[in-house]
């Protein structure tokens, strides 16, 4: 293994998301094609094998891909809202909209990934925002561009989803603890 270029580009979450979804679909398609082929053969006396290890992605990739998609779709990530607020032209539109202000590349990427829609959230992403954009009207205008291009989160639904996932995790943990306790008693 030889690293030719440690960092040749930076990707946004949306691009990674698309790549993963597309990859998943490709494997699914391949599996279906194989089954189709087998079905044809079956007519001529072939055997139909529903499952074949070559349909699968390597195990480490499958695990990671599932976990990563789960992360990308979890609120408050904008990738979790439906309909999907991104499309092929989103990045271009956002860059054009934010042109009047001077943002660094990193800041643009964070805006795309996190979709800040309040001044407090924008403040964490933009370094020294108070010095660079002291005018509140400016901040307002920036937020409006972001909301215009990326849409706005459904705050209520998001809160509920976050609370729910928290509760679910807690319950799982409690169940786990209870099971452990029972085992201790058993011993």
């Amino acid at each position, binding site marked *: *293994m*030889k*690293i*030719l*270029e*440690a*960092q*040749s*580009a*930076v*990707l*946004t*979450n949306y*691009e*990674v998301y698309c*790549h*993963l979804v597309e*990859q998943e679909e490709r494997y699914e398609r*391949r599996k279906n094609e194989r089954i189709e082929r087998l079905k044809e053969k079956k007519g001529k006396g072939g055997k139909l094998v529903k499952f074949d290890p*070559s349909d699968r*992605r*390597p195990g*480490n*990739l499958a*695990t*990671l*891909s599932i*976990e*990563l998609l*789960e*992360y990308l779709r*979890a*609120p*408050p*990530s904008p990738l979790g809202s439906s309909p999907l607020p991104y499309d092929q032209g989103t990045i271009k539109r956002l860059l054009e909209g934010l042109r009047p202000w001077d943002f660094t590349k*990193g800041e643009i*990427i*964070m805006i795309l*990934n*996190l979709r800040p829609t*309040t001044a*407090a*959230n924008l*403040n*964490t*992403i933009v*370094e020294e925002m108070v010095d660079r954009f002291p005018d509140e009207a400016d901040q307002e205008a920036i937020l409006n561009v972001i909301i215009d291009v990326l849409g706005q*989160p459904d*705050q*209520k639904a*998001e*809160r509920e989803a*976050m*609370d729910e*996932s*928290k509760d679910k*995790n*807690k319950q799982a*943990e409690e169940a786990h603890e209870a099971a452990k306790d029972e085992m201790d008693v058993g011993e």
Partner: protein
Amino acid sequence: MFILTKIADLVQIIPEDFEKEASQAIEDNINAKYANRVIQKIGLCICLYDLLSASEGLIGHGTGLVNVNVEFRLIVFRPFKHEVLTGKISSATPEGIRIRTEFFKDILVPANRLPQGSVFNDNEQVFTWVTEDATLYFDSHETVRIRVEEETWHDQAPTKATGGENDQDDGEKDKHAPYGIIASMEESGLGPCLWWDGGEEEEEES
């Protein structure tokens, strides 16, 4: 959060994979080798992004393996310094709060990088942030925003073979993650998302 890294490597395709398309066999091979692995000073590899070039396949003596030299780009998880990420609190100790995401769990927010006035609550094993008018909890499983401050790298290659200076910290070594992130939550806007994203009215109620 994610970057592309260009790598050159030798891929060996086993005869069982000959019925796959060549590009697919190479992709599976690369993914099996790199996905979910950490490369030192590069980051956590996710998967193949694209294949840039591949040589002719050559069969070596004595094996049926087809050897192909390839150049490709990998998607790698490597948040840049000062990037803001979201994650979930997994546990807290007096040293700090551990954060995980679904796919990466080695993130630590040390106690000194929490908002001023944060104290560890021994009874409940959580950190609380005591402000003038309220006590706020860093509950487990809460979704939080964090800022990446530092990275830690620990090469877990077998030390005996390399020998030398690495030998002394052998005992401690097992505890270290190959790639860890030190993050902070001290600025306003960081910390549990519910504190900052919540509706105005609800904030006043609580």
